[in-house]
């Protein structure tokens, strides 16, 4: 009888799954989109708004090759395994032409490997890990955002100009933090052989014991600090560090801290004078950005975050690839995507054929307080291209098909 009830319940569920696929018109092109909406909503919500805006614009302009573009969006609840399930549903059940999205690096890698196995194009939007285009790169995966190495390199350029000789690092204890610190150390030491690395702290992501970490770093008496923590950890570190005088008379270089997602929650306690990568949404002088900003504010009555730009650029790239290939065949899509140029709010970008990385760049500037809010000043946009690995480096690291 136990078995019987199992059969009945699974039959009911199976019926539920079978009927799950939404009914869609045949004359549309479907893109499967996956991101960590429930796990990290602070960053994925603006991202979703970004691609929805792009979707509206594309369809208002007649779609792709006269066909309406449709995005089927799935949550991965922050787990790689669930992301693969979602990818499988999108590909096998919904019949999407390509996959796009993902936030966390490990989820990006899992979906990238799935895409490689199933031979379907995957446009990774947010994952920062360099492995996705280099050591674990594959024919079917493209990545939009500048990776950890690129952003660390942009900051290392600025850091090299500082007089500081003794450096300490604080980074979350996982791959992103580790590769960011490794890249920054390598690049800064190369430019400034006189630099000395005096201390490092590796708090677990999301669980920083900020007081103890701040004291431990202060004890090593560095001239400057390289910080990779973000989100709730960054808030705690900034508060504790400020109260304990950790940042007094010290230069701080911090990855991502200039992104509105991370800077805004700090309100009037946002640090001043930190050198950061980020997105100064109200101080961007790129012409394409003005149109994007206007449309975004009109649609959502809110300002864009960096995620919004990524989401927007992701869908524009996807549309460009689909338009250029003029086919839903994966091989043709990949061929079309290699070397394709796309207009984004940050200006034109190219997806390099050699490593499938886009040349989207990032803004580097200094944090400041203005009207009780953290902002970025002295901003400069760094195009990604000069910071990307050379052809020889790519060939050495990326598996060749």
């Amino acid at each position: 009888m136990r078995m019987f009830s199992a059969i009945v319940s699974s039959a009911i569920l199976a019926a539920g799954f079978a009927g799950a696929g939404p009914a869609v018109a045949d004359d549309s092109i479907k893109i499967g989109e996956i991101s960590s909406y429930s796990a990290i909503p602070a960053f994925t919500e603006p991202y979703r708004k970004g691609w929805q805006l792009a979707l509206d614009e594309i369809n208002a302009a007649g779609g792709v090759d006269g066909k309406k573009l449709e995005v089927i969006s799935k949550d991965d609840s922050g787990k790689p395994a669930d992301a693969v399930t979602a990818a499988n549903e999108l590909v096998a059940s919904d019949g999407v032409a390509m996959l796009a999205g993902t936030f966390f690096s490990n989820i990006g890698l899992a979906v990238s490997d799935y895409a490689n196995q199933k031979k379907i194009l995957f446009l990774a939007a947010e994952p920062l890990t360099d492995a996705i285009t280099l050591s674990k790169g594959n024919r079917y995966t493209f990545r939009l955002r500048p990776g950890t190495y690129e952003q660390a390199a942009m900051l290392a350029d600025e850091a090299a100009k500082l007089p500081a000789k003794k450096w300490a690092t604080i980074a979350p204890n996982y791959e992103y933090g580790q590769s960011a610190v490794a890249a920054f150390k390598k690049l800064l030491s190369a430019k400034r052989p006189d630099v000395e690395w005096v201390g490092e702290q590796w708090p677990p992501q999301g669980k920083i014991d900020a007081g103890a970490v701040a004291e431990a770093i202060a004890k090593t008496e560095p001239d400057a600090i390289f910080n990779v923590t973000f989100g709730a950890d960054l808030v705690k570190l900034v508060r504790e560090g400020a109260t304990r005088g950790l940042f007094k008379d010290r230069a701080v270089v911090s990855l991502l801290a200039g992104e509105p997602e991370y800077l805004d929650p700090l309100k009037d306690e946002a640090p001043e004078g930190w050198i950061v990568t980020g997105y100064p949404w109200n101080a961007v002088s790129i012409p394409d950005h003005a149109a994007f900003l206007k449309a975004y504010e009109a649609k959502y009555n809110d300002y864009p975050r960096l995620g919004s730009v990524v989401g927007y650029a992701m869908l524009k790239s996807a549309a460009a690839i689909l338009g250029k290939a003029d086919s839903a065949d994966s091989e043709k899509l990949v061929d079309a995507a290699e070397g394709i140029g796309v207009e984004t709010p940050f200006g034109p970008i190219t997806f390099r054929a050699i490593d499938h990385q886009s040349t989207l760049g990032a803004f580097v500037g200094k944090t400041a307080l203005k009207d009780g809010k953290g902002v970025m000043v002295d901003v400069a946009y760094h195009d990604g291209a000069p910071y990307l690995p050379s052809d020889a480096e790519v060939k050495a690291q990326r598996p060749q098909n």
Partner: protein
Amino acid sequence: MSFYFVQFVTGLSSACSLFLVASGLSIIFGVTRVVNFAHGAFYMLGAYIGYTLTDRLSGVVGFWGAIALGALAVAAIGTLIEMLLLRRIYDAPELFQLLATFGVTLVVEDLVLLIWGPSELLGPRAPGFTGAIDLFGQPFPTYDLLLIALAPLVLAFLWLLFRRTTWGVLVRAATQDREMVAALGVNQKWLFTSVFALGVFLAGLGGALELPREAANHTMDLQVITEALVVVVIGGLGSVPGTFLAAIIVSELNAFGILVFPKISIVLVFLVMAIVLIVRPWGLLGRAEAAARAASGMVLSRWRPLRAEGRLFAVLALAVAALLPLVAGSYLVGVATEVLIFMLYAASLHFLLAGGGLASFGHAAYFGLGSYGAAIALKACGLGMETAIVAGTVLGLVGALVFGWFCVRLSGVYFAMLTLAFAQIAWSIAYQWTDVTGGDNGIIGVWPSAWAASPARFYWLTLALSAGGIALLRAITFSPFGYALRALRDSTLRAETIGIERRRVQWMGFVIAGAFAALAGALYAFLKGSVFPDNISISLSIDGLVMVLLGGVGTVSGGIVGAAIYRSLSIWVISHTDYSKLVLGALIVLLVVLFPKGLVGAFEAWRSVRTLAGLHRQNP
């Protein structure tokens, strides 16, 4: 020297903030024996409600009023949940309350998101405690000093409350002898409710008091719950001073540990817990649990093998399952494969938990070892899929052999927490040992051999191995060994008196359960094509418990039904909404209230009533 003093005081302030939340958990467990998983959710609610109130009320009175009101509001919510939910299930098997509070946690997480939005919310600093004072030449936050003063006050208050008031005496008496207190005419219901309210108040207070230190955010609950639980266990269950001591030890070890090993934080509390439990099986200040509570409140029904009718259904079910790929698309087949894998995983935990009375909070360790063993064998050693699956199973078996040897020396919640500690240690190894495991970026490219690559074929392979595994587990359950394991569950006293060696038999049971979980994990690696530390995560261990408890811990194989339903549901819900936690949590709460014996347990009870009624009709 002054640095070390400041670091010590810094550690102390962390300890105090940890103690505030853990003390409530300790009280609730000590009296009601409920492992309140929702404690972290209440802590988070304290921070969010506190944030809203501090935003509205200003000034010194406003700020502290907001903190107090926030904690009280959380206590009110907690009281409501206790009265509406927990009261209905105090008589259900132990751990069932854990399931209910887990459901509450899921619901709260999504409600917080809906009410307060996704961004982190930074509250104001505490008026009068915004700056730092000079401590041996180093600036030290005055707010941290306030916390250091507050925690001992709370400790003293609790001590007086329990030792010097009538209420406290009654509560302690209820802890030791519920019937006697009931016989004295004391309303035990309200005693429990008041204790729960006090515990939740402390959680809310702990959360609200964090506002000047950190932004209210969505992951606060899960960050704090494991740590608080670990501290309570290290201190000794139900001992508030023990909790205080443990909080200090853990925080100071962290404060000084990171000076030598900057990466230690990720695993430190679990290492400390494992060592403490191995040396002192009841925590630092805890006492031996009076009697094994395994059987209390749990009506032990008779277990029997499937009869002819049941076997027929099993065969039919298997036949229907085998035909699935002929009618279903590859996505559905993939989902079915995943469900089958989780049925095997749940069956292995069910074998241990229901069949042996051993509640493992860390069963994912063996699932994960199976995954990693298979992935490493395939990618690093270049073995084929078939050998890799065997290798994964063997790695899980060996892991269970090692960890189990320590675990079976303990019992009850301490056993559960040691399994959790080992699972977290295994997790942190997978997370940190990048050269072998790939760290958090995992191992990718773990795909089946060509002959089994199509979804249908991999499904059939999984069906064969899962069904075989489940059948084998059932056969073991009814073998002399399974009887010995169950005898120990039913009555440890009697079993040991007739010469059954508890540790050896339970160790064997642990290893068998671990090996089958590892087989499931190895299959999972090939289904997903990749392996990540997630495969060893606490949430996977909890999923296992949820599946077993939903199915019914008093049944022979309820876990597999629980797994089929819960896993299918969660895949379906995640695919259809971003608020999957809200839906799943509400469903769990509902099922817990409707079916306190689990789904299969309820079904069996219903059927036996019907059978009896039928007999009465035949023999008037």
